[in-house]
């Protein structure tokens, strides 16, 4: 397997950029050398595709391309890129300039791709993507609804550039915005442009970025620019994909921020569980420094900005700004008990500007194309786009970028392709463990996803996790799951969060086990409201959201668990059993064959039945029955 080492990728003779104008000259030089329409084989090497074996695919592809006879044809370049976003279909291979999209490619397919497609110019039908509702495969990337319905501005280069090759990034316009700042803008102008763009922090709270920069610039002292890359929400991987796929956009955003607030020292606090992101970042910084795009005297000017990657030690709470800064200082990562903003006293008690990965990645385009261009996306109050990690019971699991204010319907059905297995959509959970569940179909399918609207329905934007839940999801169990996560991840220092979460988990656990008591719902609400208002940090003050929002929108499910000792969704094992409806059962025998404990019996073409004493409630029969003959009772 080939893992490019950072050292090997720094070219022997590094071209140092000596002025902002020199960058543009070099970019043109690179463009004339590399024809953008030259044939390319792009292999996604994001973490998801790597897990499905893409590194073997790219190795095999390189070998096959090198060995094939090209007879005067241009030999295609085999290129590794970051995450294309369509993770459920990996490993992904894109053939350019035909824009062919191959999915679930294995090493065995490589030879055929070279022969049939690269040399023969014909697509291979079986590797093409077939949308869930159609029998005809789609050839081109641009025609796949998952991609065509997105507005990719932050993710624009991901899947196009090789993250380990700075020259590739430069041909796609990296560092142009920084050059613009250094040649024709003052720090004040940069801050004004960001303020005018109405960009709001993408980490979850949605604080106006320009305002933060402005406050930071006004405080005297050694200023720091810090990037929060401690993405920890279960199921969320927006930041990881950015760091792995287009690290220079984040580095450039940070450098622009440093230029604007007057800082020359920056840190990226990245979670250690993202080894590929750490490696990509480290290589990117090294390459940028060697070219004079970061480090001392950037592009020959007197602006210097030194960047270091620092890794966390696995605590979710370190994504909270003050805990992050404590951890960065080498102390225990616990939130600080201080009523002072980190732009005034943050890292090392100095003014610190902390932004999220996605926020920084938005900056270069805002500066280069202008605030008005940025505002053409999104709504009046929430400008730009937002990247979501779409997961759960949806056809197309992956990374999607949509304008702020897009409706849930567009995301779940338009891009996500709807709910698999003929199930109904029940709820969408946004905002990670601190967020809430938005009930559907009530009336919220057309709700606009933006900071304000989500808060109104008791959820939040959060960093961008979006979990789609179908009718087989038990909301009590969902809330128990998130509280269980938080019990382990709370830092434990303040009593409302530590004790409140412990007690809520205790109550939720007993409800899901059929031991719920009358009054438990009120008690959960009492503790939840208390925890949310008395805790010290952002984790604690949103910790009860999963409980409060599910009680608010699904009270009948709690009541069924407590009063009737029933789990209507068939999740809490002690509270339901399966029964085969004799009138709908066709006796096809599928369930009998699928049952791992031989609990189902019945003659062919006659109604089957389940032996309840043997049934382990694994759901296999229920999931596989084509006639919906198995009921949860």
């Amino acid at each position, binding site marked *: 397997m080939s893992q490019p080492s950072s050292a090997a990728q720094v070219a022997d003779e590094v071209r140092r950029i000596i002025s902002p104008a020199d960058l543009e000259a070099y970019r043109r030089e690179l463009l004339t050398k590399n024809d953008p329409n030259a044939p390319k084989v792009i292999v996604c090497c994001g973490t998801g595709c790597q897990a499905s074996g893409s590194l073997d695919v790219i190795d095999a592809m390189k070998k096959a391309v090198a060995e094939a006879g090209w007879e005067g044809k241009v030999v295609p370049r085999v290129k590794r890129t970051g995450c294309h976003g369509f993770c459920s279909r990996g490993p992904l291979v894109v053939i350019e300039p035909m824009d062919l999209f191959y999915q679930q490619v294995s090493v065995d397919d490589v030879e055929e791709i070279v022969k049939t497609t690269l040399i023969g110019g014909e697509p291979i039908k079986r590797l093409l993507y077939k949308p869930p509702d159609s029998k005809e495969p789609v050839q081109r990337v641009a025609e796949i609804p998952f991609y065509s319905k997105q507005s990719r501005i932050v993710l624009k280069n991901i899947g196009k550039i090789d993250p380990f090759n700075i020259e590739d990034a430069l041909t796609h316009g990296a560092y142009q915005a920084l050059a613009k700042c250094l040649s024709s803008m003052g720090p004040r102008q940069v801050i004004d442009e960001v303020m005018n763009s109405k960009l709001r922090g993408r980490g979850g709270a949605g604080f106006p970025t320009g305002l933060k920069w402005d406050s930071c610039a006004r405080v005297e002292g050694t200023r720091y620019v810090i990037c929060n890359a401690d993405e920890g929400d279960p199921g969320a991987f927006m930041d990881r994909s950015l760091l792995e796929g287009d690290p220079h956009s984040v580095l450039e955003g940070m450098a622009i921020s440093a230029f604007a607030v007057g800082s020359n020292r920056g840190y990226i606090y990245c979670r250690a569980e993202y080894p590929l992101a750490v490696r990509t970042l480290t290589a990117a910084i090294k390459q940028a420094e060697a070219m004079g795009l970061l480090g001392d005297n950037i592009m020959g000017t007197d602006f210097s900005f030194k960047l270091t990657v620092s890794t966390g030690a696995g605590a979710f709470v370190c994504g909270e700004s003050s805990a992050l800064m404590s951890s960065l200082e080498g102390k*225990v990562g616990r939130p600080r008990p201080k009523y002072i903003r980190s732009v005034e006293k943050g890292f090392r008690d100095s003014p610190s500007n902390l932004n999220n990965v996605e926020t920084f990645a938005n900056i270069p385009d805002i500066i280069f194309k202008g605030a008005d261009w940025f505002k053409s996306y999104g709504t009046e109050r929430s400008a730009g786009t937002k990247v979501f990690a779409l997961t759960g019971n949806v056809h197309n699991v992956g990374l999607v970028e949509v304008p702020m204010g897009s409706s849930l319907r567009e995301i779940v059905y338009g891009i996500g392709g709807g709910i698999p297995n003929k199930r109904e959509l029940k709820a969408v959970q946004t905002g990670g463990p601190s967020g809430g569940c938005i009930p559907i179909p009530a009336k919220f399918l057309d709700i606009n996803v933006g900071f304000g609207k989500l808060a109104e329905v008791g959820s939040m934007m959060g960093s961008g996790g979006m979990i789609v839940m179908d009718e087989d999801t038990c909301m009590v169990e969902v809330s128990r799951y998130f509280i269980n996560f938080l019990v382990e991840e709370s830092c*434990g220092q303040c*009593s409302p969060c530590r004790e*409140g979460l412990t*007690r809520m988990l205790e109550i939720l656990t007993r409800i899901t086990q059929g031991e719920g008591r009358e009054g438990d719902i009120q008690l959960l609400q009492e503790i939840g409201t208390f925890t949310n208002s008395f805790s010290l940090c952002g984790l604690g003050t949103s910790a009860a959201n999963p409980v409060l929002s599910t009680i608010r929108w699904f009270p009948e499910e709690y009541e069924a668990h407590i009063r009737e000792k029933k789990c209507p969704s068939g999740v809490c094992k002690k509270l339901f059993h399966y029964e085969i409806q004799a009138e709908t059962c066709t006796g096809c025998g599928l369930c009998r064959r699928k049952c791992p404990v031989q609990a189902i019996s019945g003659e062919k073409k006659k109604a089957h039945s389940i032996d309840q004493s043997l049934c382990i409630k694994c759901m296999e029969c229920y999931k596989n029955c084509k006639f919906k003959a198995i009921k949860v009772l």
Partner: protein
Amino acid sequence: MKIIMDGNEVAATSGQTILEVARANGVRIPTLCHNDALEPAAMCRLCTVEVDEGRGPRLVTACNYPLRRDAQVFTNSERVRAGRKLIIEMLYTRCRGSELLEELGREYGADFTRFAPNDKQCIMCGLCARVCERVGGKTLTLSGRGVEITVATAFDRASEFCIACGACARICPVQTIKMIDEDGERRILVQGREASRVKLIECVSCGKRFGPVLDLKEINERAGDSKVPPPNQGVCPECSRRNLAARMAERHFEQFETGEEG
């Protein structure tokens, strides 16, 4: 700056915490994790009050919230009392029998039967760890996270850095940390576990065992070459006083004998 506390205007200077202002004006705000000698930690949250600085009331902790502009403070509102009641009830499950919590419980109408006990004998106020850090003992810290957080020594072993000053035992509001002097040794016990065991020094003058060896060494080092005479090493405070008095008396009489003073 105009501060109205529970309806009365009170004297306050900018930057003072709500707790400082309350105490100076005779308003009682309960605390568990606060000590005037230490930086506020805002961990117990019992001192939470409502403050309105013109943008509506919000909950803040009195121990570390600095007043800098006109504000109305409600130290005992319904919301505040409801929260305090829950804090007391929940902390009591960790530490049943604590008189301090029982008394607070009576004040706030706590119902100690609502939650099942889990007897950790510690309310996790963190005072011991903070005073240890302040004194320079480098022994006790808050270890682990979430529900698992505990007061612990490094690797849960008796610490070799403990100077056995006993500040942790003295500051513990629920008497979970014990300091026992016996058989010429001082032992510090945290929730029954030995945090340190240090030899007590024998007074060279009277022979009584009076203080931990390391503590004295630490004090001597800290006093250093300051003008204050270092405590007589190896002499107990009683003997030290007696010896000093004897020396003074001696000098006094010497003066008469040599006739230096008129």
